[in-house]
């Protein structure tokens, strides 16, 4: 990237809310249903029908507003945004224009080790459009209106983002926040979260914004990163060659890694917003707004910071734990037993347990593993009752059965041997069988001690106390 320029990015994120029903009618809000089965005259926009706003939509949107530190407008209304496209049967989308439900907020995100504050202009509620399936065989386009009227929130950021990495961090944080609040499935692959990207560049040090270009069809957060990097480079090239940037909308093609002009400023849509006469003003009582605020849990960035400060975990580990609501809750439940150190709990969760979650593509809550059993297992290691290796054996069992680790240790005879007599016999045998390693050690290659301890552990079938074995191996060689 040419360092003579600064990138300026603003993002519009659309997230489908996971309500039971649509925003203005009682049709199911459900992804993957058979085409046109969740439709009625309201969401099809037939004449004479009246929309009635779903209160859950308002509450979910207010929760997001609180999470993003917004001012909540308890008295607001809805407006019509007019445009013609066959995915929109009414030829207008019910949205919000001048009085969004939430406005003037911000979101703190972690970019590397830095906390960056990104302004949130507004969050408003609106309805989603249907889905068009382009079918060459039919010689036309198929319209499925199941998604018509699915509730959306649109979260508009200030142009505070200065790099593709910051954009990615912002989007990831919005995503985890939606999941923490339980207000959206936030599944990128199902299109339940989508984003439009506004990019401009300006000479480094300049305080004026350059002309911005909007990009559509950015279907994943990693695509957003690529699209921003591409568009910024394109604009810089135009400027360097003495050209000017046109205000326009471009379409991102993630497969080809390029964008193409969709429409220029002259063709910009004129949406002719006006208050929807079918929907009156609605109010949300201040007590309700406050009650919703009290329901906001500790959010991922705050959690990450707390794990770093209170438990002295690395930023990467803290973030990994905090990123997933279920993993974070599990981690905290294990710590709440007071039986083990945060660092070892973090290592077990992010190590052996994560590997299993990845293999099985499941959430930690889907395992039979309980926080109590994991805490007990780790405390047995910390008390040196069992070795780390024996811990892995115990974990294999408690992953899928709710069984007391102490029982497993007894049944499998995993208790660590700390009896000097028994360990001495093992050390002697291993040293006798590994003369070359012993000679290497004497010649200064002291790192072979790890190999020798490993052999002793093997000989003890994982039950030897590795710390004791190491001391004994060194002492025995030095005596030779």
């Amino acid at each position: 990237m040419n360092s003579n320029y600064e990138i300026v990015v603003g993002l519009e994120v659309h997230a489908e809310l996971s309500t039971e029903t649509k925003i203005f009618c009682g049709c199911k809000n459900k992804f993957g249903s058979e085409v046109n089965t969740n439709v009625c005259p309201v969401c099809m926009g037939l004449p004479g029908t009246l929309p009635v706003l779903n209160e859950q939509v308002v509450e979910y949107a207010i929760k997001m507003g609180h999470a993003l530190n917004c001012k909540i407008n308890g008295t607001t209304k809805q407006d019509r945004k007019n445009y013609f496209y066959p995915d929109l049967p009414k030829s207008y989308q019910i949205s919000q224009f001048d009085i969004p439900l939430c406005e003037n907020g911000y979101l703190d995100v972690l970019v590397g080790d830095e906390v960056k504050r990104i302004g949130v202009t507004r969050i408003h509620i609106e309805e989603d459009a249907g889905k068009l399936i382009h079918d060459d065989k039919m010689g036309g386009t198929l319209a499925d209106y199941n998604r018509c009227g699915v509730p959306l929130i649109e979260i508009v950021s200030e142009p505070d983002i200065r790099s593709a990495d910051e954009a990615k961090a912002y989007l990831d944080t919005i995503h985890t926040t939606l999941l923490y609040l339980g207000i959206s499935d936030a599944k990128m692959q199902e299109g339940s979260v989508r984003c439009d990207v506004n990019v401009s560049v300006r000479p480094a040090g300049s305080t004026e914004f350059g002309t911005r270009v909007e990009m559509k069809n950015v279907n994943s957060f990693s695509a957003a990163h690529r699209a921003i990097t591409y568009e910024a480079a394109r604009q810089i090239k135009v400027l360097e060659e003495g050209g000017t940037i046109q205000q326009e909308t471009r379409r991102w093609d993630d497969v080809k890694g390029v964008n193409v002009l969709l429409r220029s400023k002259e063709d910009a849509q004129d949406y002719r917003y006006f208050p929807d006469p079918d929907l009156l003003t609605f109010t949300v009582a201040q007590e309700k707004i406050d009650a919703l605020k009290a329901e906001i849990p500790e959010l991922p960035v705050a959690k990450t910071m707390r794990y770093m400060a209170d438990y002295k975990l690395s930023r990467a580990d803290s973030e990994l734990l905090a990123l997933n609501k279920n993993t974070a809750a599990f981690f905290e439940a294990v710590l709440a037993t007071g039986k083990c150190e945060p660092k070892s709990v973090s290592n077990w969760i992010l190590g052996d347990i994560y590997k299993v979650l990845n293999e099985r593509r499941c959430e930690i809550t889907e395992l039979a593993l309980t926080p109590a059993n994991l805490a007990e297992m780790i405390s047995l290691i910390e008390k040196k009752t069992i070795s780390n290796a024996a811990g892995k054996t115990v974990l294999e069992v408690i992953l899928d059965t709710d069984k007391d680790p102490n029982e497993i240790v007894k049944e499998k005879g995993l208790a660590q041997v700390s009896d000097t007599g028994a360990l001495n016999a093992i050390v002697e045998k291993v040293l006798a069988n590994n003369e070359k390693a012993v000679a290497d050690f004497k010649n200064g290659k002291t790192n072979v001690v790890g190999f020798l301890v490993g052999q002793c552990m093997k000989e003890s079938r994982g039950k030897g106390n590795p710390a004791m074995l190491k001391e004994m191996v060194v002492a025995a060689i030095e005596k030779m």
Partner: protein
Amino acid sequence: MEIDIKRLAKLAKLSIPEEKMEEFRKKMEDIIQMVENLPDLDTEGSLVDPTDTMELRKDEVQPSFPRDEMLMNAPYTAAGCILIPKVVD
């Protein structure tokens, strides 16, 4: 008030023949005039009226419409969908 009837027609996706433009311009002007003659409403302050508000709906599922009946409104259908002329964004 100057009326750009071409632009209005374009926004409304209407094709108005050139010779009819003047007629429609005149009609639109009359409509605007009629609206302008209405008494002014005081729009100082907020556009929302907290004394005239609507009740919200509980998030409870109601049966949807049978698909076959919904599709009877459409001139062409295929594969459970409304078939429309090919659109490319």
